[in-house]
């Protein structure tokens, strides 16, 4: 299929098949790219604009019909999602209010933050690009551990202390 055949003249039909194959190749590439593109979505239940959009006291979030995640006020959790269009169902535990929304994620972004209060209020810009805290300084000095088995920073020495720290708020 790809061996050069300089000596032989290509028949138009052959040429068409080859062009077709190349087009098919790029179509396939685009298809698996869009379908397989995975995003990390942070579900953020924090109040915004100084209380204008209050956080849910206790909300159940279900993405694409999956097992709901329970979030209390000021909580944040993350889900990984394949593809761009997703259905999100919010169910407030306090008043039983149920909100169903469809969100579309920009294909080029790896990590996004979804503000639940904003989404519930139906406002624009509920989804924003999230820049990880340590990615802010130039990539040069940031980083993950080297291959030599080096490790990252521990926060504080706790000789003799029990390893389990305070459990998460919930």
């Amino acid at each position, binding site marked *: *299929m*790809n*061996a050069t*055949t300089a000596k032989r003249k290509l028949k138009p039909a052959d040429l068409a098949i080859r062009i077709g194959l190349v087009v098919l*190749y790029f179509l*396939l*590439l685009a298809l*698996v*790219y869009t*379908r*397989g*593109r*995975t*995003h990390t979505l942070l579900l953020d239940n924090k109040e915004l604009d100084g209380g204008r959009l209050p956080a849910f006291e206790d909300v159940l979030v279900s993405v694409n019909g999956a097992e709901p995640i329970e979030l209390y006020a000021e909580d944040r959790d993350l889900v*990984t999602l*394949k593809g761009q269009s997703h259905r999100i169902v919010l169910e407030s535990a306090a008043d039983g209010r149920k909100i169903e929304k469809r969100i579309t994620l920009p294909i080029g972004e*790896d990590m996004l933050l979804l503000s639940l209060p904003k989404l519930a209020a139906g406002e624009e810009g509920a989804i924003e690009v999230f820049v990880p805290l340590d*990615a802010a300084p130039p*990539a*040069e000095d*940031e*980083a*993950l*551990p*080297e*291959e030599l088995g080096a490790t990252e920073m521990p926060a504080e020495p706790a000789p003799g202390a029990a390893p389990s720290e305070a459990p998460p708020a919930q």
Partner: protein
Amino acid sequence: MSGKLDLKRFLSGNAVILVFVLISAAAIPASKLSGTYIVQEMLTRIGRNSFLVLALLLPIYAGMGLNFGMTLGAMAGQLGLICAVNWGITGVEGLAFAALIGMPISIALGYVCGSILNKAKGREMVTGYMLGFFINGVYQFTVLYFMGMVIPIRNASILLSRGFGIRNTLNLESVRQSLDLLWSLKAGPYVLPMSTYLVLAALCVFIVWFRRTKLGQDMRAVGFDMGVAEAAGIPVDRTRVIAIVISTVLACFGQIIFLQNMGNMATYNAHDQTSFFAVAALLVGGASVKKATIPNVFIGVVLLHVLFVVSPRAGQNLFGSAQIGEYFRQFIGYGVIALSLVLYATRERREAAALRASTYGAGRKAAAAGGSV
């Protein structure tokens, strides 16, 4: 012909398989591993390794021997996987993406490899082996320096902290076993990766079908005698290049299937042993440099890997030291592979001698008969 001669021929024809079966039969009880474990391990390894071994078949049909140059395809597959992880494409789509990225690279590499092998007719195997080392250098340079420097890498977690170069081990969590688990069947204590088996079956059908096509027939003609094929108007060099290109592309897919099952990838070493183990499996399965069939592939994968699974523990239980167990595995594994090569060489020589004797013998008899008249 007498039954005695048949038995002798059977023994010499299947000596390697028999030696392997005998050693395995001795090593399995010594390893004290359970039957369930060994069977499950074989089911997994058939899915994981057979594709790579099947990639070797076409060049053998074309008379080019064992394609050690398949390492090139393996490297292309790894580049594809690096891209898939880099762009965050997960699951089966991630694998398909890796395969699509790897395909043009392996076609190009296969073309280069095939053209060079055409310049080294008769010494394809050692040339292919050396080419593997050469391209390995190019691969390391690309991955260690170009990625992050020239080729943008967006996923910081696969990059060395100095800002360029891919890390020593690539975590393939995002595509891990996505093909195996697409459709896996639970049968009693065993898990069967059906989707992987389907892919293998499709490849086998492709190979059988390909042998019947015009190109496939040409390939076998070239493999049988290049001079005759040339005279018959078959473009010999082109056919040989195509055989290598297909083999390289299949090796690329095979490596992706292998690595998705493994779940992580030694960025700079994963392809080191690829061609070696594939070739070993094929030889152990009773194939030779000249002749190989699809059953050879599966018999070989099972036999070689049974030995790889049981021999470390067997060695350990027999000799009482963990490290001797590990050396025992290498000693037995590589020793038997060497044995298989030697046996084939001897057999080939003996067959040639027999052929010569029969032709000359017949000739002389005929001459004598003619003389008497």
